[in-house]
C-alpha cells in the first residue's frame, strides 16, 4: 500500500463510480443468479440423461452367452405407462398454475396447485414402483440381464429426479403455508417449476424412445 500518496486528494481512487455500494448493482444480464443457476444445471442434466438414454438404447437388445430372462421391453405395459406419463404431463400444467397464482399473490391457490403437483408426481412414482415390482415378479431384476440393468438405471434416475422434485414442492408448500414465502419470492416457485418441467420433458423423451418406439 502506497502510504506516501495517501493524503493527496488530487488522486482519485481508480474506478470510483456513482454506485459506491454494491447493494444497488444489478446483475449484468438482468437475470437473477438463482434462475441462471437452474438453467445451467438443467443444461448439464441434459447430458446426464442423454448418456443414460443412449446407454439404454445401445444395450437394450444385447445378449451374450449367459443372458437369461426377458428384456425390459418384453414386459412393458404400454397402457399403464401411458396413464402415468399422462399424469406426469398434467402435473406440469398444475405446476405452471402454481407459478401464475403466486405471481398474482393468490396464495391459497398456489398452495393447492403445489400440493396437486406433488400429488400427481407421487402418483407417477407409485406407478413406477408398481412397474418395477411387477417386472421383478415376472423375473426381471436389476441384475437379471443387461437390458434390465440399463432400464432400471435410466428410469430409476428419472424417478430420483421426480422424488427430489416432490420434496422441493412439499417444502415450498410448507413455506407458503407458514407465510415464509410470499409473492415477492414467486421466482423461487418458478425455478422449482423449471426443474419440474425439465423432469417432465425427460419423461416425454423416455416415453417415446424407450417405451413406444419398438
Amino acid at each position, binding site marked *: 500500500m502506497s502510504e506516501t500518496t495517501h493524503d493527496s486528494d488530487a488522486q482519485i481512487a481508480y474506478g470510483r463510480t456513482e454506485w459506491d455500494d454494491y447493494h444497488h448493482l444489478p446483475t449484468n444480464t438482468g437475470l437473477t443468479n438463482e434462475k441462471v443457476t437452474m438453467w445451467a444445471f438443467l443444461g448439464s442434466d441434459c447430458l*446426464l440423461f442423454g448418456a443414460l438414454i443412449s446407454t439404454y438404447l445401445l444395450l437394450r437388445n444385447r445378449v451374450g452367452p449367459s443372458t437369461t430372462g426377458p428384456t425390459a421391453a418384453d414386459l412393458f405395459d404400454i397402457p399403464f405407462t401411458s396413464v402415468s406419463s399422462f399424469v406426469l404431463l398434467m402435473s406440469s400444467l398444475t405446476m405452471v398454475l402454481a407459478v401464475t397464482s403466486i405471481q398474482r399473490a393468490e396464495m391459497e391457490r398456489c398452495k393447492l396447485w403445489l400440493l396437486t403437483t406433488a400429488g400427481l408426481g407421487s402418483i407417477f412414482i407409485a406407478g413406477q414402483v408398481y412397474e418395477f415390482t411387477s417386472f421383478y415378479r415376472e423375473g426381471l431384476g436389476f441384475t437379471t440381464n443387461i437390458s434390465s440393468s440399463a432400464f432400471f438405471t435410466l428410469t430409476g434416475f428419472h424417478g430420483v429426479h421426480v422424488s427430489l422434485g416432490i420434496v422441493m414442492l412439499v417444502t415450498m408448500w410448507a413455506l407458503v403455508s407458514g407465510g415464509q414465502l410470499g409473492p415477492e419470492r414467486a421466482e423461487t416457485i418458478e425455478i422449482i417449476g423449471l426443474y419440474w418441467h425439465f423432469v417432465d420433458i425427460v419423461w416425454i423423451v423416455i416415453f417415446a424412445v424407450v417405451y413406444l418406439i419398438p
Partner: protein
Amino acid sequence: MAITEERPEILELESGDTSTSTGAFARPTNASGWRAWVFTVDHKKIGIMYGAVAMFWFLWGGVEALLIRAQLFTPDGTVLTAEQYNQIFTMHGTTMVFLVIMPLAAAFANYIVPLQIGARDVAFPRMNALGLWIFVFAGIFLNLSWFLGGGPDGGWFAYAPNTGVTYSPGAGMDFYALGLQIAGIASLVGAINLIVTVLNMRAPGMTLLRMPVFTWMIFVVQLLLLFALPVITVALILLSFDRTFDANFFNVAMGADPLLWQHLFWIFGHPEVYILILPSFGIVSETLPVFSRKPLFGYSVIVISGAAIGFMGWGVWAHHMFVSGLGPVGVAAFSATTMFIAVPTGVKILNWIATMWGGNLKFTVPMMFSISLVSMFTIGGLSGVMHSVAPADTQQTDTYFIVAHFHYVLFGGALMGLFAGMYYWWPKAFGYKLNESLGKWHFWILLVGFNMTFGPMHIVGLQGMARRHSRYGPEDGFDFWNAVVTIGAFVILIGMIVFAVNIVRTWLGYKAGTVPQEPADPWDGRTIEWAIPCPTPEHNFDYVPVITDVDDFWHKKYQPDENGKLRKVADGNEIAQKGDQNPHLPSPSYWPIVLASALPLIALGLIYNLWISGIGLLLLLGAMYGWSLEPATDPDAGHGDHADEHGPDDDDSPGDEASEITEEAPVV
C-alpha cells in the same frame, strides 16, 4: 435443492464479525486462526486453500512419479512389485489430473476471476466453500484406498471390463469410481457458480468482449465442465453399479460392449484435457502483454479461438480409440476432426508470439514460465497432431510417445502456465513477490529437468516402449534413455524444492520485514485486479470500477498525448484504490464443510457397509436443513439497508433483492 435457495451475494456482503445465532447453530465468527479458514466463504481464502491443497497433492503425485521412475531406472527394476506399480501409475495420473491441475485452475479461477470482473465475491460464496471442501474430501477419500487394501489399479481411464470386480477384486477401483464422482460434484458446483458469476456480476461497462482473457478462458472451462461432467458421472455410475450392485453394464458374458465405457469416458475425457489447458492459456494471455508492454495481439481472435477449442473439443474424443475397433469410418472421421483442432490452438500460439514481437520484453519469472508454455506446449501439440494421423497412431498409442505428448501439454503447457500465474499473482494474494532469482533457478532447473524427463520419452516411445509396463527387458534397448528420464525426474524434484524454499524464504522474509510489501500495481498491470492493493483487501474493491476498455486499468495509466503518442499519465499505484473503505465481510458458515463431509461417508458405506451410508445421508440431510435455515449473510451483522427487511426468523433465503434488481432499469 439448495442451489436455488441461495441468493445473490453480491448484493449484500456484510460484516460477519458476530456470533449471534441464526439458523440451527451459532454462526462461526470471523475471528482468526484456523476457523477463519475452515469456515470462510471468502473467494480469496477459498482460492488460496484450493492452491495449497493442490500443491500438497502435487507433491504426492510427484512422489508417485518418482517411484515410477525409480522402478524404470534400470531394466527389470525391483523397486516396486507389478501390483504396486499398477496402482501407483493409476493414482499418479488420477492425482495429477483431478487433484492437481484442476484444483490449481480452480484456485486461480476463484481468486482472480471476481477481481478481474470487479465483483465482491462469487455468486454463491457458501456453494464455493462447499465445492472446496468436497474436493478436499474427494482427495482424501481417493487416497484412503492406500490404507484400505491398495489403490485403484485400472489406469486413470479405467477401461472396462478390467476394472470390474472379476478382474479387479480389491476395493481400489471402488475408491476410484466413488472418489471421482465426489470430485465431480465439487467441480460441477464450482462450474455453475463461476458461470453465474461471470454472466451476472461483472462491473458496469465490462461487456463480454471487455473481459480479461483469463476470465474468458475460465468461463469457457466452466462451460466445458458443466457439460462434460455429467457424462463421466454416468460412466462412473455404471461402473459402480456393476461393482457394487452386480449390474451388467460391462459384463461381456451378458452381451456388454466394452467400447461403451471408452466412449463415455473419452466424451468426458477429451473436453477434460482442454479443461486442463485453457486456464493456463488464459494466464499467459495476461502475462505476455504485461511483460511485453504491448496489448495482446488479436484479443478477440484469442477469445474466439479459445471458445472454438472448447467447442471442437467435443468432436474428437474417439482419437483415444483408434485401435479399439471403431471401424474405418469412425477412425477416419475422428482423425480428421482431431487434426483441425490444431488450427485454433495454433492461432493462439502465433498470436502470443505476435504479442511478444516488437515488444519490450522483461524476463521476469512469470514471463519466462509463459514463454516456456508457448514453446513446450507447441512441442506437445505437434506430437498430438502426429497421433491424430490414425494409421501412425496405431504404432504410437500406448507407448511412451503418448506419455511424452501428454506430459508436454500437461506439464509443459498447463503446469508451466500455472507457475507463471503463481509468480504473477503472488503479490496480489500475499502482498509480496516471490524472490525473482530463486524463481529463475526454479525455472531453469525445471525447464532442463522437464525436457530431460519427457524429451527422451519421444525416442523410447518411437522405439516401441509400451506404457503402463512395470518392467522392460535388458534386450529391449530402452535402458539408456530410461536412465536419463529418471535422472530428469529428480532434476524436476530439485527445481520444485527450490520453489518450496522460495515460498518459505520469502514468507519468512516478509514477516521479518526484509521482503518488501508490494504496492497495488507491481508489474504495471493491465487488468483491474491491479487497481486494488496488494494483498487484496477482504472486501476486494472500495468502489465499483466502471470499465470502458479491454485492459481498462492500463488505459487509465497510459493515454495518448497531443501527438497521439501514448504516454504514461498516471502511476498505477497512485490511482489504485486504497482498500480502506467499506469493510464488508462475507459471513462464514459451518455448513459447507459439514455437508461436504457427508459425501465420503456415504461413499465409504457403499464400499463397506450401507449403515455408514445411512449415517452419511443423515448428516447430508441435516446439513442441507441447517444450510437452508441459515441466511446467506448474517442479518444480525447489522449492516446495510436490507437488514431490517428480513429478520432472523426469515429463515429461507430472501429473494427480494433479486426482484428489486429486475425492477431497476438495467444500466445503459
